C-alpha cells in the first residue's frame, strides 16, 4: 500500500557519512545520528536536500534502559526520535539520537522548525531530556511542581505504586505559589510604554474552550496582544498506559484519545500495529472498518458543526446536529452495543461481523443526512451574521500551516489538497471514490466549508461500502489475530494451545517498530509503536493533530478580539483528550 519509498541509501548519501541507516518494519528511512549532528542534519533535510522535508511531524523519545532486544543498535539510555515529512516525496524520514543518562541533552531544532517547540517541551517534561537553545523549556503536560519524568521507565505507572498522597501545609503553600500567575514566566510583558495590558484567564473552566483548556490572554482593550495556551489538564498518561497494557487490551484506551472519533482511533492504532506485526486484514474486515470509521468522522464533524455555531452565538444548531449524531450512534449501537467508545476493532479485523439488517440502517442514514446538511447550510453557512463572524478571521497561508504542522481539514482549508486516504491509502480507501474538499484562505469559514463537505464525502464513502461490501471472513488468518480463531480449537491441540495463549497472554510481537498515520477526524493521527518482543508495547507514542493545532493558536489570534478567539477555537476542531493524551 505504501507508495514507492525513497531508498535509504539515496538519502544516506545526501545526509553524508555520519548517518547510519536502520531497516524498520514500516519502511520509513531511519537514520542514527550523534547528538551534535542532529541540528545540522535537520537543517539540511529541511533546506538543502532535493525535495526537502518541510514538515516537522513528530518528536518523541524512548527510555531504552529496560530494553532487552536492541538488535545490535546503540547502547544509549534514551533515544530521541524525530519524524519529518515531505509532501513532495510523500514520505517520512525518521532520525534517532542515542543519549546517555549522564548527559540527557540534544540541541533544539526550534530555530529550524518552530512547531518543534511544544514537542521538545513534552519530551523534556516526560523524559527529562533537555534541548539546548530552546526558548522556553518548561513542563507542558504535567504540573510545574511535579517531581520526576513520567515516561521514564523508573517512574511509577500506577498511583498505588507512588505511596499515599499527603498534603502538608508547606506543600500546599508551595503548590499554591506555583500556581501564581506571573506574565514574565509565560513570555508576556505587563504592558507597552503607553498602556498596561489586561490578563484574562480563559479556562480551564470556560464554556467556549470545549473542555479543560486554559488560555492566558494578554489584552489591550478587547484586542488580543498575545495568547498562551496552557494544556495538560486532560493528561491521563495514555502513552504510559500503553506500556502497561498488552497489545490487545490497549485498544479501548485508544477510543478515548480523540473521544469524538470512536473507532477512528482504533483504526489509527491498528494500522500501525498491523504494520508492525505484518498482518493483512481481509477485504471484508477492511471495508467494515472504513465504513464505521467514516460514520465516526460524520459523528465527530456533527459535534464540531453544532458547537462551532454555538461558539459564534447561534444557539439552536447544536441541538439539530446532536439529534443527527444520535441517529448515527443508534447504528453504532446496533452494530457493537457501544456508542461513543465502541472498542470494536481487533487485531486483524473487527470484533464481530455486522449484524443482520445492517445495510438498511446505514442506507437510511445515508439517505437521511444530506437533506439535513442542506438545511444546516441555509441556517448556518449562509447566515450573514455567521459569515461576518467567520470570514477573514483566523486565516493562515499554506506555508504557515505547514510550518506549524497543521494537518487534516484545517490544512485543506488553506487550499492544500492533501489527504492521507488518497495519498497514502490505507485500509481499502484505494478502492473507494471520494473527493478532497479544499478551501482558499484557511479562515474559519473555509474550515467550515471543508468540514461540511467532508461529511458529504464520508456519506459517499459509506454508500459505496454498503454497496460493495465483500463477503468472506472479517478477521485475518494470522497467528497474532486477537482474539484468535476458535473454530478448530476442539479439533487439534496446537490450535487450542495457541488460542489459550492468545486469549490469556495476548499476542507476542517480535522486536521492532512501526509508525503509521491515518486521516483521522481532526487531522493526522499516528501511532509510533515499539516492540521489545513482548506481549505489550515497549513504547507507545501517539501523534495527535490537535496538539499541533493548539500550538498554532497564538499565531492565529494575535491582533484579533476575544469573540474571534472563540470562533477560531471552534473552527479548529480540537478535542482536549487529543491534545493532552
Amino acid at each position, binding site marked *: 500500500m505504501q507508495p514507492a519509498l525513497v531508498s535509504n541509501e539515496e538519502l544516506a548519501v545526501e545526509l553524508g557519512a555520519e548517518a547510519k541507516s536502520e531497516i524498520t518494519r514500516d519502511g520509513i528511512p531511519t537514520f542514527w545520528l550523534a547528538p551534535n549532528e542532529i541540528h545540522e542534519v535537520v537543517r539540511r533535510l529541511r533546506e538543502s536536500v532535493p525535495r526537502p522535508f518541510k514538515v516537522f511531524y513528530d518528536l518523541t523519545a524512548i527510555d531504552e534502559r529496560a530494553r532487552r532486544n536492541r538488535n545490535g543498535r546503540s547502547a544509549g539510555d534514551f533515544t530521541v526520535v524525530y519524524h519529518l515529512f515531505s509532501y513532495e516525496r510523500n514520505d517520512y524520514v525518521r532520525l534517532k539520537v542515542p543519549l546517555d543518562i549522564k548527559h540527557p541533552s540534544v540541541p533544539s531544532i526550534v530555530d529550524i522548525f518552530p512547531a518543534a517547540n511544544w514537542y521538545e517541551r513534552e519530551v523534556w517534561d516526560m523524559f527529562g531530556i533537555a534541548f539546548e537553545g530552546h526558548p522556553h523549556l518548561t513542563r507542558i503536560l504535567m504540573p510545574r511542581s511535579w517531581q520526576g519524568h513520567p515516561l521514564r521507565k523508573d517512574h511509577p505507572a500506577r498511583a498505588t505504586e507512588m505511596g499515599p498522597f499527603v498534603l502538608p501545609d508547606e506543600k500546599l503553600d508551595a503548590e499554591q505559589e506555583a500556581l501564581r500567575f506571573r506574565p514574565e514566566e509565560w513570555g508576556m510583558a505587563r504592558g507597552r510604554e503607553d498602556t498596561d495590558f489586561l490578563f484574562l484567564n480563559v479556562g480551564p473552566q470556560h464554556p467556549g474552550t470545549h473542555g479543560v483548556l486554559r488560555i492566558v490572554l494578554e489584552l489591550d482593550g478587547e484586542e488580543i496582544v498575545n495568547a498562551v495556551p496552557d494544556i495538560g489538564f486532560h493528561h491521563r498518561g495514555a502513552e504510559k498506559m500503553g506500556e502497561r497494557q498488552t497489545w490487545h487490551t490497549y485498544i479501548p484506551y485508544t477510543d478515548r484519545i480523540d473521544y469524538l472519533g470512536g473507532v477512528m482511533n482504533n483504526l489509527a492504532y491498528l494500522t500501525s500495529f498491523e504494520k508492525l506485526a505484518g498482518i493483512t486484514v481481509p477485504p471484508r474486515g477492511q471495508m467494515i472498518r472504513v465504513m464505521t470509521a467514516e460514520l465516526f468522522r460524520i459523528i465527530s464533524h456533527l459535534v464540531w458543526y453544532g458547537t462551532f455555531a454555538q461558539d459564534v*452565538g447561534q444557539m439552536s444548531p447544536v441541538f439539530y446536529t446532536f439529534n443527527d449524531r444520535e441517529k448515527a450512534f443508534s447504528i453504532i449501537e446496533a452494530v457493537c452495543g457501544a456508542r461513543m467508545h465502541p472498542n470494536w476493532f481487533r487485531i486483524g479485523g473487527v470484533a464481530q461481523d455486522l449484524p443482520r439488517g445492517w445495510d438498511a440502517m446505514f442506507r437510511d442514514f445515508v439517505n437521511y443526512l444530506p437533506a439535513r446538511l442542506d438545511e444546516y447550510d441555509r441556517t448556518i453557512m449562509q447566515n450573514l451574521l455567521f459569515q461576518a*463572524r467567520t470570514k477573514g478571521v483566523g486565516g493562515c497561508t499554506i506555508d504557515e500551516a505547514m510550518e506549524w504542522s497543521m494537518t487534516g481539514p484545517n490544512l485543506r482549508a488553506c487550499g492544500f489538497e492533501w489527504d492521507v486516504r488518497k495519498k497514502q491509502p490505507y485500509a481499502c480507501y484505494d478502492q473507494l471514490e471520494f473527493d478532497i474538499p479544499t478551501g482558499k484562505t484557511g479562515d474559519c469559514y473555509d474550515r467550515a466549508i471543508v468540514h461540511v463537505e467532508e461529511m458529504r464525502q464520508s456519506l459517499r464513502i459509506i454508500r459505496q461500502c454498503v454497496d460493495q461490501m465483500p463477503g468472506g471472513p472479517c478477521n485475518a488468518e494470522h497467528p497474532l489475530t486477537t482474539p484468535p480463531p476458535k473454530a478448530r480449537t476442539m479439533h487439534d491441540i496446537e490450535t487450542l494451545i495457541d488460542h489459550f495463549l492468545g486469549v490469556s497472554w495476548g499476542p507476542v510481537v517480535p522486536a521492532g517498530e512501526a509508525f503509521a498515520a491515518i486521516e483521522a477526524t481532526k487531522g493526522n493521527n499516528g501511532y509510533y509503536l515499539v516492540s521489545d518482543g513482548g506481549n505489550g508495547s515497549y513504547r507507545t507514542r501517539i501523534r495527535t493533530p490537535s496538539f499541533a493545532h493548539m500550538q498554532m493558536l497564538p499565531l492565529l489570534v494575535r491582533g484579533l478580539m476575544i469573540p474571534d478567539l472563540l470562533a477560531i477555537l471552534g473552527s479548529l476542531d480540537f478535542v482536549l483528550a487529543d491534545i493532552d493524551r
Partner: protein
Amino acid sequence: MINLYPLLIIAVVLFIVLNLAAGLIWVERRLLALWQDRYGPNRVGPFGLGQVLADSVKLFLKEDWIPPFADKGVFILAPGIIVATAILSFAVIPLAPGFVVADLNIGVLFLLAMSSLGVYSVVLAGWASNNKYSLLGGIRASAQMLSYEVFMGLSLLGVVILAGSFRLTDIVEAQRKVWFVIPQFPGFVLFLIAGVAETRRLPFDLAEAESELVAGFHSEYSGMKFGMFFVGEYIGVILISVAISLLYFGGWLGPVLPPGLWLAIKTMTFICLFILMRAGLPRPRFDQLMSWGWKYLLPLALLNLLVTGAVVLALS
C-alpha cells in the same frame, strides 16, 4: 375620600407585568425547545407550568452571596436599577383606552429615558463585580447602548411627527385610519433593532455572550440578585414588545375583540419574535455591531426623519 382608582391601576399593571415576566421564563424555554426539536420543561405541573414557581422558589432560597472582592453597595444596587427602571416605564404605557397609570404628555420621552437608565444597571454590575469578564461585559454594554440609544430615539420621531404628540394614547388614537407600521416601515425596523439591542438579547447579547464572557456582566451574581437581572430582562422584552405594538401596530385598536386583548395578542407576537430571534441568530462581534450602528442605522434613522418631516410638511 382618597381616590383608589389610580392605585388599583398600579396594582393591576404590576400584577400583569411581573407575572408575565415570570411566565415568560416558561414561554421562552418551551418555545426554544419547540424550535430546537426537544421538550423543554414539561415535568412540573401541567405543561411544566409549575417550573415558573419552582424556579422562583429556587432563586429566592439560594444563598445570597456577595463576593468579598466586590464593591458591596453598588453590587446590590445594580440589579435593583434594572427592575426599577423597567417597571417605571410601564407607568406611561396604556394597556387599554384610559387604563394607564400616568398618561404623560411626554410619554415617549419618558419611555426612552427610563430604558436608557437601565443600562446603568449593567455597567454598574460589571464594574462592581470586580471580575474581568464582568468588566468586559459592562464595557460592551455601555458601548452598545451609546450606539443604539441614539437612533432608537430618532427612529421614533417619525411616529411622533405623524401623530403630532408624544403622548402614547394620542399616538394610538392617531392610527385609527392606518397603522404607523405602513408609513413608518423603516422607522419600525430601526426601532425593532434598537429595541432588541436595548434588551441585550441575541443577537445583541454581547454584554452577556455566554460563549465568550461566561456570563458577562452578571458572572458573579447568584440567587435572587441574578433573578432580578433575569426579571429585568423579561420586563424589558415585554416593554419593547408593547411599545412596538402601541407605536406601530395600532395598540389596542382592532375589530370585535376587546381592546386589552388586542394589545395582548400583538405584544405576545413580538415577544415570540424576540424568542425566535434568540433561537435563530448568531452573535455579531462588538466592533461590527458598533460600525453597523453608526455607519448604517443612524444615517438611515436620520433619513427617515427627514423624509417623514418633508412629506408631512408638504401635505399640510
